[in-house]
């Protein structure tokens, strides 16, 4: 399998704290790759530099053949990297349907002047809302949704732009077990359709059940990678979680 998303020797420091220290990861085309590590190990920072929210101090980030290092977030998204946030971020005062349309990409400046929703876009948005099971809420202000529904909405509007790879930051955080199963199920379905995922998650059961490969971060660098079962027994990983 070919590598779709790759970070090579990426470093990022905030003052004296090295959040990322020559960190390298790679995500294979069509995989669900897990990214785990103790709190503060640099997982979210890695997401932020990949998606353009933070600039790297050194290193390289590639998507397929293109370099996306230090590109702004809108560019990175247009090139095909979608993400969700650890604390779900939707547009609370827009309706669910409007939320979906924000992420729809159109070509050319003139297309911005036409109505925000074409019938084709509308259909696509409804399909995806149906896929995550919240199409009945399409006219509700998104701020009125429950936390779990907001997660589903964020997931759905990232999908509408058909990104090549989706970065999920704790998709199972803060929601009930049934909903966790539901989200896992949706991810698997998309995976079967060929979507690539990189998943940060603290819920080990969820990660181990979902991912083909797991990478472990500690102090801003990758310390282990491999199939879930192997990683679980890796002494370096146990050390990182329990040691110090």
């Amino acid at each position: 399998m070919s590598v779709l998303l790759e970070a090579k020797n990426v470093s990022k420091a905030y003052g004296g704290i090295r959040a990322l220290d020559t960190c390298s990861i790679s995500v294979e085309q069509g995989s669900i790759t897990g990214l785990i590590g103790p709190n503060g190990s640099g997982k979210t920072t890695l997401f932020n530099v990949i998606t353009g929210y933070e600039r790297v101090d050194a290193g390289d980030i590639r998507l397929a053949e293109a370099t996306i290092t230090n590109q702004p977030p809108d560019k990175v998204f247009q090139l095909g990297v979608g993400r969700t946030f650890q604390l779900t971020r939707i547009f609370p005062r827009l309706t669910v349907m409007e939320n979906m349309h924000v992420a729809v990409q159109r070509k050319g400046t003139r297309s911005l002047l036409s109505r925000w929703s074409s019938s084709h876009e509308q259909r696509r948005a409804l399909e995806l809302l149906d896929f995550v099971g919240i199409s009945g809420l399409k006219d509700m202000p998104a701020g009125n949704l429950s936390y779990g529904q907001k997660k589903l909405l964020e997931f759905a509007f990232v999908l509408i732009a058909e990104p090549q790879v989706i970065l999920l930051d704790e998709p199972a955080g803060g929601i009930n077990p049934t909903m966790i199963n539901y989200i896992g199920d949706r991810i698997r379905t998309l995976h079967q359709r060929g979507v690539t995922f990189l998943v940060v998650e603290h819920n080990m059961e969820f990660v181990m059940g979902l991912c083909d490969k797991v990478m472990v971060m500690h102090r801003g660098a990758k310390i282990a990678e491999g199939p879930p079962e192997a990683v679980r027994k890796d002494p370096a990983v146990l050390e990182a979680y329990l040691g110090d």
Partner: protein
Amino acid sequence: MKRFRAFGLLALLVLVIVFPVLIPDPGFDSIAIYTLLYAAAVTGWNLFSGYSGYISLGYSSFTGIGAYTLALICTHWQIPGGYIPFLLLPVAGLVAGIFAIPMGWVALRTRRVTFVVVTIAMMFVLQALAFNLSGFTSGSSGIIFPITLWSGDFYNIPYYYVSLVLLLLAIAISWWIRNSKYGLGLLAIRDDEDRALGLGVRTWAFKLSAYVISAFLGGMVGAMFAYYGGSIFPASAFDPVVNLSVALMGFLGGVGTLVGPIVGAFLLEPFQQYLTIQYGSVGLNLIILGSLLLLIILVLPGGIVPALHSLWLKRMASRGAISQVSHAMEQEEGMLLESAEGKRGNR
């Protein structure tokens, strides 16, 4: 409901059109002109500040630039009073729009409270320039517009209808933006700018262009204000009271809605005129106006239009027409059960 609304709008439009014929009183017509102009100004302010959530308290920067542009053109080219200055309004708007590019470039690097402060500061910088570049603006002695030689009865009529045209133009632009992909991007910026950026919205270009369009309308309205007033001075062109009034009317009617600014202006401007006539001599009018701003934000943080809207939704829901919420909840439950069963089936 839709037909009812269309009929209401049409009736309102007819009323506004025949108003100066029905009530030919110059005092009333003058208040009506200011009301229309304020409605246009607030609509222009709202299409940037309301949609994008970047609250500006320096809108008179642009009304002032527009006013000075028209005044300077009229004096330098010795344009006679009458209809020609009306035709120059777009030029005033254009100049204000051009000024807005560097101003927005700087101001839009800040957000929220800082942005508010920067917009106020910029307005005072422009006011100081108008005072001190006296070779260009004649400083504190101001500029007198050419006199229009219309008779007393007729005098207000052209101003009234040009103001109405400005308002309709502002509404048309605001309506178009609200319904476009561009406008949806601005609303997304209001709710979560960084999130919007991460979904491919070119936030910088969106904000700056909306700021410029907003300035363009402000410039035209400001030129009209000044031309109707007959003269212009630095302190009246770049006027903190205008900054405040525009924002106040926006908040009262409903920031970020299409009709909110018009509702706000139609309610507040006549009231403000009344305050000025009653209490202007002792300066109490500004104190009342400021207190009102605080009160509105306290009692109606969303404004009249959104408050009415949610009231209407509540009534519909209590009538049992559609209980969206309970329906949605049922659907979610169904979905969760389905997925749980699906999982069991897989294993």
